[in-house]
């Protein structure tokens, strides 16, 4: 068996293991539905779903970005990004429990809450159950259509070598990116911000998109660096590439801090009751330690580590930083979502974990299957030769 086939087998094994873990974790979670009650189940489910959805949208966004700017950094991770975006249909199916649990999750979906609150009554034109479902369907339709077209085009070029497809993807990528930012902004306002329907923030969409980009960079780099010991990735992973991926992740770490702090500073300065309540909730009862930890561990630590050219040169060090960022992203979303459900102090319910593993298992299963379904590196992309050229100059020096 040749080394590339072995790499395929590794992804196939990942897919089987992930599926098994996912199904077991979901069965345990289903038991939790009866044991812990449906409210807790839906809250945990919503959290776990958003964590994985952020990664999905991040990989999809980076696919669009890659086809738009055509940087050589994107080629070695392109298949991971595409496979991540290919989980959108799966995520559509997994969205159904969120719809089923709407009245548990969203205060505006409970008539008795809306009746008691005049502000919410004014918002019913937008925040109502049928319109929410229609909007979500539209987002998924746009995302799945774009992701499918791009993936097909990229695979077709691998088969036929038709270089005009490159331009075609660029023509889709640029307007697609605009559409992406708009739809994801609306989706995050609908799915997450409306958990606290009386609160609003105008940087919310950008904040989430940056977080998604950060997740996606950390995830795809993690997969790439783990696979880097095997062919064909061993041929393209080199200090130039790890530096590029490290620098891009670094940029997203800073952007995340920038958007997070902008939102905080504006609300803190204005100190209006309906806005500042968001941070008041998240700075008491133990949540203040998570706030501080996020500042230090999702900004300062990765910032300082990724500043170093040594970390970016050695795949082993970079891998640790990336895994760490991925973990922090889950903590970050916990901090964003759980206080919205009225959780007064940070407590992890076991359903949070099993559902994170359950949805994650299915996600990785689908992801790895799609990685296996295509050449592991884009074959006929003329720019991969650029990447190869760098590889040869860099490795021969080292």
């Amino acid at each position: 068996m040749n080394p590339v086939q072995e790499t395929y087998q590794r992804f196939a094994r990942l897919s089987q293991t992930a599926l098994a873990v996912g199904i077991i974790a979901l069965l345990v979670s289903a038991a939790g539905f009866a044991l812990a009650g449906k409210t807790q189940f839906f809250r945990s489910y919503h959290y776990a779903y958003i964590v994985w959805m952020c990664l999905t949208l991040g990989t999809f966004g980076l696919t669009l970005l890659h086809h738009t700017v055509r940087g050589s950094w994107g080629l070695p991770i392109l298949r991971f990004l595409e496979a991540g975006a290919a989980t959108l249909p799966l995520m559509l199916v997994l969205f159904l429990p969120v719809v089923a649990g709407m009245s548990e999750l969203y205060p505006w979906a409970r008539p008795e809450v809306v009746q008691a609150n005049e502000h919410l009554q004014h918002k019913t034109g937008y925040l109502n159950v049928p319109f929410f479902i229609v909007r979500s369907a539209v987002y998924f339709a746009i995302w799945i259509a774009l992701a499918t077209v791009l993936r097909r085009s990229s695979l077709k070029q691998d088969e036929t070598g038709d270089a005009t497809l490159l331009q075609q993807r660029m023509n889709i990528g640029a307007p697609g990116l605009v559409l992406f930012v708009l739809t994801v902004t609306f989706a995050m306002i609908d799915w997450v911000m409306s958990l606290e329907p009386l609160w609003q923030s105008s940087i919310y969409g950008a904040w989430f998109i940056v977080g998604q980009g950060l997740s996606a960079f950390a995830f795809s780099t993690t997969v790439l660096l783990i696979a880097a010991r095997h062919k064909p990735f061993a041929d393209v992973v080199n200090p130039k590439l790890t530096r590029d991926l490290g620098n891009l992740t670094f940029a997203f770490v800073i952007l995340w801090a920038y958007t997070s702090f902008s939102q905080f500073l504006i609300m803190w300065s204005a100190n209006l009751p309906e806005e500042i309540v968001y941070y008041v909730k998240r700075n008491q009862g133990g949540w203040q330690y998570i706030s501080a930890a996020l500042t230090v561990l999702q900004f300062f630590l990765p910032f300082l580590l990724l500043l170093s050219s040594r970390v970016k040169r050695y795949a082993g060090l970079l891998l640790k930083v990336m895994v760490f960022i991925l973990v922090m992203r889950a903590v970050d979303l916990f901090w964003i979502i759980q206080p919205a459900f009225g959780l007064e102090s940070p407590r992890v319910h076991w359903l949070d974990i099993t559902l994170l593993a359950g949805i994650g298992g299915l996600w990785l299963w689908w992801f790895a299957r799609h990685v296996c379904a295509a050449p592991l590196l884009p074959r006929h992309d003329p720019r991969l030769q650029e990447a190869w050229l760098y590889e040869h100059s860099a490795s021969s020096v080292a």
Partner: protein
Amino acid sequence: MNVPLHGIIAEFESAEDLLHAAKRAREAGYTQMDAYSPFPIHGLSEAIGFEDHKVPWTVFITGVIGAIAGFSLQYYISVVDYPLNVGGRPFLSWPSFIPVTFETTVLFASFGAFIGMLAFNGLPQPYHPIFNAPRFERASQDRFFLCIEAKDPLFDRTKTRQFLESLGARLVSEVEE
């Protein structure tokens, strides 16, 4: 014939040739060399064995100084020298200090990068022997140069010259001090 030499310079036609030559020279044991090209070539600084972190560290340290300076300035103004009650907030309202602290960090770091780069490069420098090299003006146009310097322990007028010629240089010439 007894003019002191700065080194021996070889002219190449392409970036790949230069990169290749630099690599070979390193393999041959030369350590004191410099490369000149019209545009940055990836991997070249590693190829000539350039390992210098003075500028990055200067940027980092000046950045940290900038952060401390910016924050201290605001602390001194708002807490020590002229405390004002703004909407009942504490005098040490650190969130509103952050944007200025960020700006001074960037400002100081940029100065650190610019001045540090000039200083460690020994610039401004009115005279440098490399400009004695024939056709050297083309280093800013379309030619790629590798100069093995006379201070290299392996440097030998004849042998180094032969070595550079063996690398397929278009022109090899001595550079006077």
